Every structure is written in C-alpha cells, then in structure tokens.
C-alpha cells in the first residue's frame, strides 16, 4: 500500500494518509482532484469495485467529508478517498459515468445530506423520503428527537432513567 501511495503522491496532492489495517488505507485529496484520482485508481491501479460512497458531517469545521471507498480484488486492498467539501455550498462532481451504482449513492446523499451532484441521473427525485420539507435529516444540526416529539403525538408516560448520567456523576466526575 505504501508504494501505491508514494506512486500516487507524484501526481496528486495527498495528505492525511492513515494506514488503518494492513489492507485498508485512507487518504485525503483536494476537491478538484478527487474525481481524477478515483478515475486513475479505477483505470490504472485496479480499484474497480466501489464499495460505498457516503458522507460524514463535520459541523464544527463547517465541512462535509465525502468518502469513496474503493476495493481492489486482485491485491485484496481497500483505499478510502476522503474529500472535504464546503458545507454551505455542498456540490461535488458526479461519478455516475464511472460506476452505474454510484448514481444511487448520489441520490441518497442529495436527499439525506443535501450534497448536490449536478448531472447525475434522477438525482433530484426523492429516493427515500416523501414530501420532506425540513433540512436534510442526516445533517448534524437536524434534531430527530425534537422533530419526532413535535410531529408524531408521543404517548405520554415515557420517563427516562439514564443510568449513564448517574454513573458519570458517581464514577467519573472529572469528565
């Protein structure tokens, strides 16, 4: 894996590489190089299986982390390509031309995170939700408990006795 990363570093601005497992590595690339790197990996390095494409919301840093997890079945290795994109203008180049399955992931990301992929097929159609009029639900600033209590007539009588809070007070007062 290290040789591969060294080879890639000659062409792409790769930072933050994490060797998580012998067969799993995560790297970060700038947004404008991401699709080029993913295409390069697919065409020349044999990473031809898109395992998943998803996003992580780092609301504190005002960033979305997109992750393209690619798999090379000949060398039995995974490479996670992280891309940090701005949270307010969340737009990313689509990769539906590389993998047919990617269009579905991008539809889900558009709906659940509000990350736009212009040009991806059926990206604007609702995928999971129907008639949703709030902010995209997987964003960290969407409070699912508050929404549920306001909308769905909670049955009265649910009281919470959280043992974790009690234990924290007794055992770990310093945290």
């Amino acid at each position, binding site marked *: 894996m290290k040789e591969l990363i060294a080879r890639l570093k000659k062409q792409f601005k790769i930072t933050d590489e994490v060797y998580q497992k012998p067969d799993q590595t995560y790297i970060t690339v700038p947004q404008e190089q991401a699709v080029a790197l993913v295409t390069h990996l697919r065409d020349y390095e044999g990473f031809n299986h898109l395992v998943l494409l998803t996003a992580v919301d780092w609301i504190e840093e005002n960033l979305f982390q997109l992750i393209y997890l690619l798999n090379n079945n000949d060398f039995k290795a995974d490479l996670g390509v992280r891309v940090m994109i701005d949270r307010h203008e969340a737009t990313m180049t689509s990769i539906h031309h590389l993998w047919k399955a990617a269009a579905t992931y991008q539809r889900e990301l558009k709906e659940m995170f509000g990350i736009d992929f212009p040009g991806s097929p059926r990206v604007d159609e609702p995928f999971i939700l129907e008639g949703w009029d709030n902010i995209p639900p997987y964003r960290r600033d969407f409070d699912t408990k508050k929404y549920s209590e306001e909308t*769905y007539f909670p*049955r009265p009588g649910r009281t919470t006795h959280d043992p974790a809070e009690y234990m924290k007070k007794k055992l770990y007062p310093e945290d």
Partner: protein
Amino acid sequence: MKEEFEKRIVTGPDGKQFEVDPMKDYFCEDRPQVHQPNSNTVIEKFMNWARSESLWILGFGTGCGAIEMRPLMTPRFDAYRYGIQWRPTPRQANVFVISGYLSVKTLKRVVRSYEQMQGPKYVVGLGSCTINGGMYWDSYNTINRLDYYLPVDIYIAGCMPRPESLLAGFEQLKKMIKAGECEGQNKYAENFDWYKANQKKIIKDWDMPDYNW
C-alpha cells in the same frame, strides 16, 4: 401533488381530445358511514361468530414483524387451522396486521389499503412500535402511536412478538369479535375528521381522496 393527478387535456387513441380531472374522475368523494348492528340479537350473534371464524389477513408486510408471518403460515405454527389466512388484495381481507413500525411513506399506503378493505374490518397492532414507537420513538420518519391514524382493535406486544403470542392475539381477537366489541370501523367513521386531520398532519403530499372506496 403529483403531476399525474392534475387537471389536463388528453388526446385519446382515436384522436379526440377530452379533459381529465383525476381527483374527481377516478375517485368517489363519499364519507364512510356508521353501520348499526342487526336489531335481532340472535342474527347479530350468528354473524359475529361467522366473522370471527374467518379472519382473512391482508398480506402487506409493513414492517419487520412480517418476518414472523412466514412461520405462522407454515407447518410449525400453521395459523390456517384457526381459519386465519393471508390474502393478496385488500378487497378480500378483513384483518389488517400492522406488522411493526410505520414510516410516513408506508402510512399513506396503509391508510389507502385499510380504506379499500371491505367492512367489517379489524386492525391488529403488532409489536411495541405501534403502541408508543418502540425503539424508534425518536426517529424522524416513523409514527409513534398507531391509534391516532387508524382504529386499533387489539395490540400484540413484543419486539417482535413470537408466533405463539400472535396466535394468542388472534384468539383474543376472535373472542372480542364474538362479544361484539370490535367496533373499530364504526369508530373510524364516527371520528373521521379527527383521524383525517392527524393523517394529513404528517403525510405532507396528500394526493388521494379523503376516503378511498
């Protein structure tokens, strides 16, 4: 509202043009009525007995509780020996088993299927999700209380209930029908406006008539 439900001009296969208003043309606008029991108690008792002994369940697996329906249909638990069987269409069914949580998208289809069923009809809420939301009590997409949207006759608690408890629940339902206590359909007709208001509160794109005949 979806595009296909809007008023528009259509050219037929023979070249003639005509106006279509799907919400008016395809659906009936009548409200459901309350059905009074037969004035002769002997006949009413006989009819309740007949209703209770043929529970035909709509085969609509709305949630994960549907996985226990398969063992219930097959030799180990065999619900058919109690006169319980599954039907593919709402027109032939009279028991609606809400098998677990309902997401908003499914609730719309469930309301529609329930209203299409022939009366007298009964609703069985299966699992703790139908009672108070169960473990999805804080989810943004599942309802918490089923009895705000459909008239529930009996709940079977558990997550998920075992086939034995389902059989016990159906036996209990039979007893209740024989005693004439399952009046969910009439309750729905009496409190129709309240149920509709609750349903419309959470189903944002309501594109069907108020009652689906």
